[in-house]
């Protein structure tokens, strides 16, 4: 049994440079512990600031109060209805956007003429801030669900479309040629060559769209007043119920984190077999 002196495995920078291949269980555990510590620190800071008078309690209630209100809300029917409405708008809007995005993206992507023709239009429409549609939504649908959907679908659609276009563009010409030489036809090509190549991009698009959809759903509810979490937040602010306001914001954040995690997990599952050659993964 050889005796070794305890020297660190590498010298130099503690962090810069990926060490992915050498991350042991211990390091991952340490990371998780640190992360939880960070969250705990945040809660501690928010608890102490108003107590010590650094920040007025009116502006920032302590964590304990926020949590108390939060727990309270968890027992309120109105709260859960609002969350349900938010998730409903999110889900429907996302579904529409994904289906539309994939279909339109595939069609445009596969026909070079269409792609050239629509490029400028897409580039013009895409950066239009969805909030510009708010007045329109209000006029057309008032405070119904459809108001929210208008914004959600509009914003999410572009996320999906752009990614699908990248995906179709990324098809290996050799693979495409092979498919053609086997006379697979359009549908065959799509199924065996284009779709598998585009799938990682589609998943990225879905993930990005999922985040955007939630943001827009809550935004629409906030500004327009359609039913949901955003509307509750607006009401809390208007009636100066500050701890409630913070509690609802926390819920919105948690919702966002959960959706992001679920989307990433789904992305990983679907692509478990897929070797992704892209290095950049937009967050």
């Amino acid at each position, binding site marked *: *049994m*050889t005796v*070794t002196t305890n*020297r660190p*495995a*590498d*010298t*130099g920078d503690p962090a810069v440079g990926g060490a992915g291949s050498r991350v*042991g269980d211990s390091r991952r555990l340490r990371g998780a512990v640190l992360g939880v510590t960070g969250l705990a620190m945040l809660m501690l800071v928010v608890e102490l600031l108003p107590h010590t008078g650094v920040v007025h309690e009116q502006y920032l209630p302590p964590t304990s109060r926020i949590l108390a209100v939060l727990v309270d809300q968890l027992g309120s029917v109105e709260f859960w209805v609002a969350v349900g409405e938010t998730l409903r708008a999110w889900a429907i809007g996302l579904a529409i956007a994904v289906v539309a995005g994939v279909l339109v993206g595939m069609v445009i992507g596969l026909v070079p003429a269409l792609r050239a023709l629509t490029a400028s239009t897409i580039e013009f429409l895409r950066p239009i801030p969805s909030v510009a549609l708010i007045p329109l939504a209000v006029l057309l649908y008032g405070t119904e669900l459809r108001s929210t959907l208008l914004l959600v679908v509009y914003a999410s659609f572009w996320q999906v479309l752009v990614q699908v276009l990248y995906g179709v563009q990324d098809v290996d010409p050799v693979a495409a040629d092979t498919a053609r030489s086997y006379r697979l036809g359009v549908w065959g090509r799509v199924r065996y060559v284009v779709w598998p190549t585009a799938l990682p991009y589609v998943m990225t698009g879905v993930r990005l769209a999922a985040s955007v959809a939630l943001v827009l759903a809550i935004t629409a509810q906030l500004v327009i007043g359609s039913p949901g979490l955003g509307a509750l937040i607006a009401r809390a602010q208007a009636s100066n119920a500050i701890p409630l306001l913070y509690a609802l914001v926390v819920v919105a954040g948690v919702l966002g984190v959960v959706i992001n995690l679920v989307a990433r997990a789904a992305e990983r599952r679907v692509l478990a077999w897929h070797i992704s050659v892209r290095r950049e993964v937009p967050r």
Partner: protein
Amino acid sequence: MLEVRGLKKVYEGRQRRVEAIRNLTFTVDAGDLVCLVGPSGCGKTTLLKCIAGLLAPTAGAVWFGGRPVTGPPEGMAVVFQEYGRSLFPWLTVRANVELPLRRRRKLRRAERARLVEEALAAVGLADVHHAYPWQLSGGMQQRVAIARAIAYQPQVLLMDEPFAAVDAQTRAELEDLIRDLWRRLGVTVLFVTHDIDEAVYLGQRVIILSASPTVVAEQVTVDLPAQRDQLHTRALPRFAELRGHVYEQIQLAKRGTRVPAVTG
């Protein structure tokens, strides 16, 4: 010039400890061109990183110019195998070669420029100053890396399988380039490779490493003439003998005493 004494490197992995290097001891004198060969996975890169001060050994030490190596020392330049990833893609060829020199405040801009130009000319790339590395072929990129190393005016040049990822013809040219630079600049070269032919062709001495956990299996003096070229030297009977001997040793090393990785 360069002394490796009792070098030992153990990697603490997930559940097992891997003893990459058990005990390496050898010397490289000033002005030598020494090649290190060994079977795959025998820790050649680990060894080079320890010598370069990029990795701390678990035990033993590397002595450079009479002082122990605790971090990357002054006077040592490294040429990595992955040239594509070792050149900065946002800098032109010229800026890449100049980068290590920027640290030396003693040098003025004109002096730096001269060193850069000479180095690039020496590797035969006088006219790609303003290109970006990714615009060049693999062989040319590796030349840029070599130019960067020699512009640095090091005493020791460490090369980690620099031609492994390059095609055979380019490799032959680069081998000759190295020998040429070595003779002209009088720099000490430690050349790690898995290519036995290359090791015998280039080196004055070939250090054969065992399989992991690595020790020095043997040191072979290459008594080929000082003037070497691809065509004639490789046709010499002595070349074939030396090559055969090294090959044999490596085969033995692969099959020979292999101590299993220390667990627990």
